């Protein structure tokens, strides 16, 4: 067995059963032992933690990211296949299991929480990347649009190129010919002068003895055959015939079903449970109380209230039982009990200058305001939002002989495993987590409360159980996209040039740069105050960009309007030193025929937002008839550096736009008497086909560093919509959802 060297990034090793591993050794120790379980006994050869070459020459990409629809797994396999020069038709994908070897999570956690020095086993060449990686939520976490940017660039490409290099060396040595004469083609090694040709699989034993290069030579972009091209997503066929297996589809022998209810008022605890009626229902097996769950993990830390679980022979029976429960919850003393109170609190706190923390301070803003010949002000608000993943939260758990097995669709398998182990007070190696396809994630499935509940129930009833949340629970017990108020002041010189930008908002989260603007405004003072509420919050597709995209791109539009300038021209004038932004914006305007006026009652709006390394411009066209707003068309342009999977990138932009548009048009979680009012899709509406605009997405492959695709489509849609509504109607929407302004 090859040694996992302490300082190696890439390393090789022969596995029991004749297998081979060329691994990403991110920490010293006995990773190979754990990995050997993955090989099975089919003689498969694990080449690299990211790649396995089987004896029939099929190549499997071991992908450490979960699939929630974003298509990252296919795109990551493309990156590997390209550098490895693999035959795409013989590529397979497996999601890497939740064990430490696939994750820097535990390392990141130690490093971040215990303040230890940066681990010395990370080779210097990737130090910077590791820091960035942890900053981006850890490795096996799927979120922050990191899969392609980090895992793809640092893992998949390096693995592919390095393995290809070793295969060539092995062939040169076996055939006793110069290395320069060995080339590769569709998972085969080729000796060019003699046209001799053999599959990669013939050489893996030789490769096992080699030391892989940390810095292999990459292909040139112009030589790409798989990256940047259309390849059909590998997961799609199973998603059109019902065979794709989601967590909800797991079946275990003797499995019972459970559903839960937590206190409607966040923070309340259980005083008493009257479950007499529930226990009389045929099929109800038990009613139990679940203790509060919490985790102080850096990534995925959360706290949630206790719950009552009803366990039955059917979800439907459990749900019926749940509805008959009569639970007395404790009183919670809340300063702000309703949405109205919460926004009043924001309005009060936003004026507290002594509490204000700065995000960006440049130039002399007070003097600029004094000298300004025109000053405008505006206040914006956005509400709390739920995620409403199409697949309601669920998890299946089974505990026997001190071992817990859990089947769940989640964005953070290792974090979930750790949280479940903590909740059960067992070691992490007593918990096996089988991650499943997710029916949507959007950030919600990065927090493990539902997996913990499933484990708690399985432990209590000593049977395999499938916990399914009702849609009502899903909407009322979310970790919500935070509501925010944001206040702006802008000052202009006598020519209408924007000289000063002042912005104060409540409740900052991540990413830190979300409220910053790309525009060359000389004096800027951007800062925030804290105004906590009792409403639990978490990451929601594009995180803080979802709010600040609306705020900043609405206010820059207001600035243009205030000086009578064209909204596009006004932006272009402030972006002279930002060629990528300029190119994206100009292209969007061109594709959308920005200059062509629309008929009365129609309007166009534009937005520009950089997030997760990608720059996106959107132009929205709306029609307003009898106070009814119809979104007709969206043109989006993205510069992600390079789109690995162009069709997948387009699909994600379309998806991000519809997700953001649902929120902009309808999305609002209302708090009343401390609890969420909305309960299901009838009162927490989602965009439907009849409301959906046509979306045209254009990609600019600028060649810059790779940017994300899952989130950058979302932030720009709300402001482009509001700006279009203003153009069509003269009504400036400063508070979302938009429908509230058009409902009377």
């Amino acid at each position, binding site marked *: 067995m090859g040694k996992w060297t302490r300082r190696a990034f890439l390393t090789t090793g022969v596995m029991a059963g004749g297998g081979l591993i060329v691994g990403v050794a991110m920490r010293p120790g006995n990773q190979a032992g754990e990995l050997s379980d993955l090989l099975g006994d089919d003689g498969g050869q694990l080449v690299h933690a990211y790649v396995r070459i089987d004896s029939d020459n099929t190549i499997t990409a071991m992908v450490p990211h979960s699939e929630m629809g974003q298509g990252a797994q296919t795109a990551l396999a493309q990156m590997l296949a390209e550098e490895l020069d693999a035959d795409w038709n013989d590529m397979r994908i497996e999601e890497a299991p939740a064990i430490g070897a696939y994750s820097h999570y535990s390392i990141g956690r130690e490093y971040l929480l215990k303040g230890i020095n940066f681990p010395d086993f990370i080779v210097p060449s990737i130090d910077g990347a590791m820091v960035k990686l942890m900053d981006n939520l850890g490795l096996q976490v799927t979120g922050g649009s990191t899969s392609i940017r980090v895992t793809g660039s640092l893992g998949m490409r390096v693995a592919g190129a390095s393995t290809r290099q070793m295969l060539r060396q092995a062939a040169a040595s076996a055939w006793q010919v110069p290395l320069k004469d060995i080339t590769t083609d569709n998972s085969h090694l080729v000796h060019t002068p003699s046209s001799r040709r053999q599959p990669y699989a013939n050489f893996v034993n030789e490769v096992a003895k080699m030391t892989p290069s940390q810095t292999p030579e990459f292909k040139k972009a112009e030589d790409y055959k798989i990256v940047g091209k259309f390849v059909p997503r590998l997961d799609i066929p199973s998603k*059109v015939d019902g065979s794709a297996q989601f967590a909800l589809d797991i079946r275990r022998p003797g499995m019972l079903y459970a559903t839960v209810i937590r206190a409607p008022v966040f923070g309340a605890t259980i005083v008493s449970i009257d479950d007499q009626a529930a226990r009389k229902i045929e099929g109800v097996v038990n009613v139990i109380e679940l203790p509060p769950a919490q985790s102080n993990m850096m990534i995925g830390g959360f706290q949630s209230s206790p719950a009552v679980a009803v366990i039955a022979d059917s979800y439907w029976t459990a749900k019926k039982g749940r509805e008959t429960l009569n639970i007395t919850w404790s009183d919670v003393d809340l300063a702000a009990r309703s949405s109205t109170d919460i926004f009043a609190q924001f309005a009060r706190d936003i004026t507290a200058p002594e509490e204000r923390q700065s995000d960006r301070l440049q130039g002399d803003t007070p003097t600029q305001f004094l000298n300004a010949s025109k000053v405008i002000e505006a206040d914006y608000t956005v509400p709390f939002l739920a995620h409403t993943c199409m697949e309601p939260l669920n998890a299946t758990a089974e505990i026997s002989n001190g071992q817990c097995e859990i089947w769940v669709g989640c964005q953070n398998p290792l974090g979930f495993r750790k949280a479940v182990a903590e909740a059960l007070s067992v070691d992490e190696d007593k918990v096996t987590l089988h991650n499943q396809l997710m029916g949507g994630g959007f950030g919600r499935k990065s927090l493990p409360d539902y997996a913990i509940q499933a484990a708690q129930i399985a432990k209590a009833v000593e049977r395999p159980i499938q916990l399914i949340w009702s849609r009502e629970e899903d909407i009322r017990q979310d970790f919500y996209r935070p509501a925010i108020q944001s206040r702006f002041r802008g000052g202009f010189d006598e020519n209408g040039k924007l000289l000063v930008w002042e912005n104060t908002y409540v409740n900052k989260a991540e990413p830190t740069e979300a409220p910053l603007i790309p525009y060359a405004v000389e004096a800027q003072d951007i800062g925030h105050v804290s105004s906590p509420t009792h409403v639990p919050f978490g990451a929601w597709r594009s995180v803080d960009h979802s709010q600040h995209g609306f705020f900043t791109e609405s206010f820059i539009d207001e600035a243009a309007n205030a000086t009578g300038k064209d909204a596009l021209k006004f932006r272009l004038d402030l972006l002279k030193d930002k060629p990528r932004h300029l190119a994206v914006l100009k292209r969007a305007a061109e594709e959308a025929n920005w200059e062509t006026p629309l008929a009365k009652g129609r309007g166009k709006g534009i937005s520009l937002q950089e997030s997760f390394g990608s720059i996106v411009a959107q132009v929205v066209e709306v029609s307003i008839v009898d106070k009814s707003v119809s979104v007709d068309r969206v043109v989006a342009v993205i510069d992600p550096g390079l789109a690995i999977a162009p069709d997948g990138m387009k*699909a994600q932009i379309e998806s991000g736009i519809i997700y953001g548009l649902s929120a902009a048009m309808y999305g609002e979680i209302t708090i009343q008497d401390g609890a969420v009012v909305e309960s299901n899709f009838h009162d927490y509406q989602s965009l439907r*086909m009849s409301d959906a605009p046509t979306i045209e997405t254009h990609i600019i492959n600028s060649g810059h560093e790779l940017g994300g695709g899952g989130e950058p489509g979302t932030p720009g849609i709300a402001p482009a919509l509001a700006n279009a509504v203003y153009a069509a109607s003269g009504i400036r929407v400063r508070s979302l959802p938009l429908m509230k302004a058009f409902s009377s």
Partner: protein
Amino acid sequence: MVTSFSVNGKEKTVQVDPQKPLLWVLREQLDLTGTKFGCGIAQCGACTVHIDGQAIRSCVTPIASVAGKAVTTIEGLKSKSDEQHPLQQAWIEHQVPQCGYCQSGQLMSAAALLSENPNPNDADIDQAMSGNICRCGMYGRIREAIKSIAGSSVADQFYDAMETNHG
């Protein structure tokens, strides 16, 4: 109570509460998990199946009301020649699914639409498909996939599939 009905052409008998929704009978008793739970109140369409060729929301359909009827689920969606339904091929061609969770319901709604109206216009498609939510927002692709086979001879193949289910 005992209820008998056919599912994808096969006779089934279940003994459950007559009020238990078809969705949960399919998923829990018959192990047909392709039909999904999304809302439980007929708002999202994830649970759409066919009863005697009509698209219905199985989450609010008591099993008693299905007695003697022919149910088709995503697992039984096929062409006349027992191959992939043309819509399924169109879904792959247009790379429709993202997370894929709603797609069984989307396909069942689309198949019912085409069997009733082989050549739907945009308004017909909106009408038939707006009961199905896709949180990944693939509405444009769904529409294009439906239109790609609308009006063609493949669109009416579903009629035949339904007839075999009755047998």
